[in-house]
């Protein structure tokens, strides 16, 4: 599949001044550090790879079972296992050098200082185009608070990260809130350059024979096609309230799914759980968007937020 310059620019999108060759990224935690998929898909055909959430220190994660399938989705309670920011910078990021797709680091901490420190370490990293802040992980209860459900705490995290890095900052929101618009405004006021959503919905599965939760941690994050209608709705609400670009995700499997988000207002999308089913899913989504754009004689930029209501 060769793309000429015109077609490729019809697919490109821009977020916080960064240009992406197409609007399809991989979602954090579903694509490892990128190279895991190297043999199964063409990373050069992605808009960006968002790597597994990084913490200051390596983290071992939660005991198993960590995942369970649910109707049209899955629950996970990985516990944010990761190699830590230092190993990432030394061993993982360099492997992605020279690829046409961009790389975004996803970070999380247990304190605001953690977030700030992480942002600082990533600041001058070669090959990173942006930092995505995960304030919405429902699995780690340490410290007690879930930053992402409290607009004030969310704003404090964003503010701290904003001051610690020159990289564009994307804030990733949790769907487990009454009003997503309040969170969008809070993180925008705190200086985020873009908003991504949705992270997983908190859920639970019970093993009725053993009368125990299936997951060792009791609850986990629900992802996959099952959550897509909630994700599209929240993206639409967020896009209407936002001044900054929106990156939409939640249950995207096909190009048509991705287009729902883009038409509802997302400047880019992320493919998560679908990569488990088909490691080539994100590339196929990008190819399908290219077909749609050609068939409808339009561009991705024209499609963003083109939803007609009423």
């Amino acid at each position, binding site marked *: 599949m060769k793309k000429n310059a015109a077609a490729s620019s019809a697919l490109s999108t821009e977020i916080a001044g960064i240009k992406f060759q197409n609007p399809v990224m991989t979602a954090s935690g579903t694509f490892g550090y990128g190279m895991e998929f190297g043999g199964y898909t063409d990373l050069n055909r992605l808009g960006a790879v968002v790597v597994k959430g990084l913490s200051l*220190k390596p983290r071992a994660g939660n005991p198993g079972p960590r995942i369970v399938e649910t109707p049209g989705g899955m629950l996970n309670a990985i516990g944010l296992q990761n190699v830590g920011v230092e190993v990432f910078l030394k061993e993982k990021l360099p492997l992605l050098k020279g690829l046409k797709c961009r790389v975004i680091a996803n970070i999380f901490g247990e304190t605001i200082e953690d977030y700030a420190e992480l942002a600082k370490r990533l600041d001058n990293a070669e090959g990173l185009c942006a930092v995505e802040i995960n304030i919405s992980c429902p699995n780690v209860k340490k410290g007690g608070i879930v930053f992402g459900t409290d607009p004030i705490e969310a704003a404090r995290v964003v503010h701290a990260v904003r001051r610690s890095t020159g990289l564009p900052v994307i804030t990733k929101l949790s769907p487990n809130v009454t009003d997503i618009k309040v969170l969008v405004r809070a993180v925008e006021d705190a200086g985020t350059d873009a908003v991504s959503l949705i992270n997983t919905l908190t859920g639970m599965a019970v093993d009725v024979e053993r009368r125990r939760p299936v997951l060792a941690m009791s609850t986990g994050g629900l992802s996959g096609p099952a959550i897509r209608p909630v994700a599209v709705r929240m993206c639409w609400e967020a896009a209407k309230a936002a001044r900054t670009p929106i990156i939409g995700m939640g249950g995207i499997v096909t190009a048509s799914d991705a287009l729902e988000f883009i038409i509802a207002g997302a400047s880019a999308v992320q493919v998560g759980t679908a990569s488990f*089913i088909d490691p080539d899913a994100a590339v196929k989504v990008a190819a399908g968007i290219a077909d749609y754009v050609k068939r409808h004689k339009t561009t991705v930029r024209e499609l963003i937020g083109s939803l007609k209501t009423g």
Partner: protein
Amino acid sequence: MKNRIERLCEITHNKEVSSSYFRIGLKWQTPRIAPGQFVMLRVTDSLDPLLRRPFGIYNVIDAAGKASLRGTGIELLYKVVGRGTRILSLKKPGECVDVLGPLGNGWPLPRLLSSGKNRWGRHDKIIMTGGGMGIAPLYLLAKKIKTGVVLFGGKGRAEAGLTKAFKGHKIRIATEDGSVGKKGFVTELLKEELGPDSAVCACGPVGMLKAVAALADDAGVDCYVSLESSMACGIGACLGCAVKSGAHGAAANRDYRMVCSDGPVFLSRDIDWEAL
């Protein structure tokens, strides 16, 4: 850059070999396969069930019907336990399934085969121990390790039927109901066979593996177990299939191993059996 294998494979056969146990053949110009590796099958293109299902590679079929590790097709042996395997069991020859693999490490053949001539200087007797469905990945191993002994433990006659393919190997059977072979657990047989020069390769339910590992540990011999876990990706990306590593295990900052990419075969002492 896209060179690893995920493709639609045609089903050549899909037969019930014993009550609710099926053997399926898939056309596949395979890369070299290590005994103990597995594949992830997508049994439907509907979104329910959503995830792929892991199955050990039971056999590699080559043009000449030889025990090659490279071939024109593979066979899987599976038991119908839920929706995914039921859907699979209804598929007919000529239909296709989406196969991702070969995945995982497999048993360390070179090390096992060097039997006594290597610097470890033991492994004169490879004991392959399978429990129930756990016999599946041992077939390919047994094909390669002709001198080994195969021990099988199962509930009764239906499961013991799975061992038919092993004729030509030294095989001993234990069944819980005593309908075939010795009455009792496979660990009884293992106790009889275990010697200081043995190495054990085992696959089966966690309870059995735990007991096997303990016996091997007592005998001071290496024991390689093939583990199962819930899996989403099969390629080390989702971190969903973690098992806790034991005291002798990996670095402190890496408490968990991924069954799909670090395993499914582990040295038994690298596993924290308490946590399983």
